[in-house]
């Protein structure tokens, strides 16, 4: 059967996917944002480690802290989804396993992002509480 195919027919579909630049760019944009957000986050974590519950609620009541925490969550979870997708695509060959793992990865990252942002906003806007 292969002998009947033209060279063009054999080559078709073997080139670049014509797709994926958006992901490449989003990985870089989130990485630049995270350079700053992570350093701010580590510094904040040092303060929060001895602030206790009341101190943490008070800290998150500041709009600047709340906004930066939300940005850290958004950039972090997006970067983490793209990064883990690359790892899965590199090491998992079986298409069905790969698809399932990519789906789990996407769900974990988006669920983690939604939960984190809702929790942060709840505390920031209401001052904590159960």
């Amino acid at each position: 059967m292969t002998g009947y195919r033209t060279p063009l027919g054999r080559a078709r579909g073997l080139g670049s996917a014509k797709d994926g630049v958006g992901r490449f760019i989003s990985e870089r944009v989130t990485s630049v944002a995270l350079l700053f957000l992570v350093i701010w986050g580590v510094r904040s974590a040092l303060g929060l480690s001895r602030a206790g519950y009341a101190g943490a609620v008070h800290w998150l009541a500041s709009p600047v802290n709340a906004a930066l925490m939300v940005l850290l969550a958004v950039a972090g979870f997006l970067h983490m989804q793209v990064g883990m997708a690359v790892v899965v695509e590199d090491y998992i060959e079986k298409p069905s396993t790969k698809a399932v793992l990519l789906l789990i990865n996407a769900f974990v990252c988006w669920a983690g992002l939604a939960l984190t942002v809702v929790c942060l906003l709840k505390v920031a806007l209401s001052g904590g509480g159960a």
Partner: protein
Amino acid sequence: MADATPGARPRPLSPHVMHWRWHVTMAASILTRVTGVGSYIGLLLVAGWALALASGPEAYDDYMGLLGSIPGQILLFGFTLAVFYHLAAGVRHLMWDLGKGYLPSTANATAWVAIIFALVASVAVWALYLLGS
């Protein structure tokens, strides 16, 4: 997949991982992936912190108690190392994206800088934490 043309030369394969000589840029590349996965777990810990904070004082104290236990502290120290290494490795990658730092001597040097930065920054942050509390 390409159809094998009868009589064609087999396509060249890249050497298997066991045939590479270990060098620092290779270690740096592997560490970038490993610390990326480590930071993945770490960010889930941060999500847990936000959930505990939103769940009230008891849940928050329980969660901070878990993080303050010996296994929790080891996990957090690992997270610190992973984040700082991945951060430095990210800067290397951004420089490469700009077309800089490809000379083997430069790549070797920046690999060592990233590893040493991760160790020094992590120890410094934890020294601040332990001295402050």
